[in-house]
């Protein structure tokens, strides 16, 4: 998927590097060096997503975000910050950010998060009780999952993990994203907890001899084939 991205970042070296890397993922990237430029850019053309640095000259990131949201701009915004304190994270999310990541962030990670956010926007709200990806069906309300019509017996965390994969089918989910979303932690465990759980999930999904639906994206994370 190719996106039209606005990157708001005052650090020129970092901005150019990140822009070039994101272009490498086939995205179109516009760089704005401060809050005012960012607001002007948003007014002049439609973007699929905004990557917004928190600390900016003139108008800071939080204010830019608040102005976007008060102007009914619902486009996905990932807030980028050198500050990693939990209170600041909460502030950013409360101001309307869809995601909050701490600098520096690898381009693959940022790319995965951008794609996941943009795809999540395409979901149609609550048409059914179940969500589906390929032959996997998950019922988030009943905590049940099936593959090719056969119920799969999953632990609580395995279920949450599968649910996240199905909801984001065909989107790469990085380990950090999974830790945040499935485990609900704002810290990164140093062990391979995600890998261990994915392996267990794979074993259960392929117990009946089906093909492994989870793809390992080397150096990035995992993706469920839809």
């Amino acid at each position, binding site marked *: 998927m190719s996106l039209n991205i606005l990157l708001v970042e005052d650090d020129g*070296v*970092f901005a150019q*590097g990140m822009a070039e*890397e994101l272009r490498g993922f086939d995205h179109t990237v516009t760089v704005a060096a401060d809050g005012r430029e960012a607001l002007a850019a948003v007014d002049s053309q439609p973007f699929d997503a905004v990557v917004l640095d928190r600390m900016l000259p003139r108008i800071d990131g939080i204010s830019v975000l608040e102005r976007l949201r008060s102007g009914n701009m619902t486009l996905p915004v990932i807030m980028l910050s050198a500050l990693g*304190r939990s209170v600041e994270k909460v502030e950013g999310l409360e101001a309307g950010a869809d995601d909050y990541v701490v600098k*520096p962030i690898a*381009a693959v990670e940022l790319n995965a998060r951008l794609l996941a956010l943009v795809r999540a926007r395409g979901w149609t709200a609550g048409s059914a009780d179940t969500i589906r990806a390929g032959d996997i069906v998950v019922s988030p309300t009943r905590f049940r999952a099936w593959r090719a019509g056969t119920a799969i017996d999953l632990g609580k*965390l395995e279920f949450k993990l599968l649910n996240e994969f199905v909801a984001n089918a065909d989107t790469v989910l990085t380990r950090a994203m999974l830790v945040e979303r499935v485990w609900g932690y704002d*810290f990164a465990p140093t062990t391979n907890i995600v890998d*261990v759980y994915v392996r267990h999930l794979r074993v259960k999904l392929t117990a009946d001899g089906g093909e492994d639906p989870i793809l390992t994206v080397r150096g990035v994370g995992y993706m469920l084939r839809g």
Partner: protein
Amino acid sequence: MRLRSLRTLTLAFLLAFLVVTLGTGFAIYSVTLRTIERLVDRRIQAVFDEIAGAFGDRSPEELVRRINAATRQRDTGDIGFLLLDAEGHALGGNIRMPRRLPLGFSTLHGRDRIIGLSAGRALVRDVGGGMTLTTVAETEPFDDYGPARIGIYLIGFGSILLIVVCGLSVFVVTISRRIGETRRTVDAIIDGDMTRRVPVDRSGGEFAQQAIAFNRMLDRISDLMASISNVSNDIAHDLRTPLARLRSQLALSRRRAESEAQRDDLDAAIAMSDELLEMFAAMLRIAEIEGGDRRAAFASLHLAALADEIVTMMQPVVADSGRTLVFDAAAPAEIVGDRHLLGQMLVNLIENGIRHTPVGTQIAIQVGATAAVATLIVTDTGPGIPADQRTLALRRFGRLDASRHDEGHGLGLPLIQAIVRLHRGTIALEDAAPGLRVVVTLPVR
């Protein structure tokens, strides 16, 4: 008993004061009494000599005449006389004696029932012919002087004692209140509230001056701490930006790299910069926890339930590493704390257990509680930490073997310690013989 606490000092002082006061009172009382007795004895001896001196007529008639004359005289009018014959019959005098007094001096009491006398001295002497002459004088300036004197003593010494006790109490209360205020301030500071200060009264006295000096010291400490924490935060923070650039430059170079070998080299360089960034993230995380801001979000929770949840979550990871994880909860252990941080603490403790032990090790988590503290004990059967290195293990970057190139940045245990401190708990590393036992205590709700 060591005279160290304010209470024992006060009690000791009061006891000494009481002993000295009572001693003084008793000494004054007995010296006065003996002096009066001696004076009275001298007086009745003199009167006796005047009436029945060794010279002159000692016939009963003459003695009675002299007694009557003395009774009438102003200066001897208060003296009692009694002249008895050999059989004990009264021959003359102005008093009656219910009992026979021995020869020589003796003391009289109210119970001797001599009219108009409650305390006195008597002198009994043989005056020849089997007769005895008793001379009696009061030792009190007025009747019921004894109770009156006790009253005076009680009022006098009682008020002195009262003043001393009151003064002492005010003193003790003032001092202990000042000490209490200082201690509460110190406790608050230890708990991370660097804004607390000792209240200063406006008297300008020693206490106020001491409080001002103490507060100035705290101001200075808090300035220093703020600048240290700013410096380390600034370092961690400011270095992140160039590191982020470095990382992004490396990532860019990797994209442009032409050979697989170059890509591998650059991957290694990127991994190194990621390690550095993780270290800074851990430092900033510790600084954030030590700031104490997260205490505002404390809520009550059951440590056993949280541990159970984390153990269940970590079970596959531990099993995957070839080790075992067992859990035992003796009590629900209700505490007040930050669920996420305590969860991180448990995860880190288990991860430590995996990282620093050989395959086949058992990691045991126990939760218990007493009336005052909840305990969390993590024991492993691994190699443990030698006693002399346990303090080092809790220190930042205090990696036990600097040459060892395993994962981890030496901030794991310090981070756990920061979380424990935030919860006003304690952490101790012990020898599980063999293995390491980490004992965490947290105050119960």
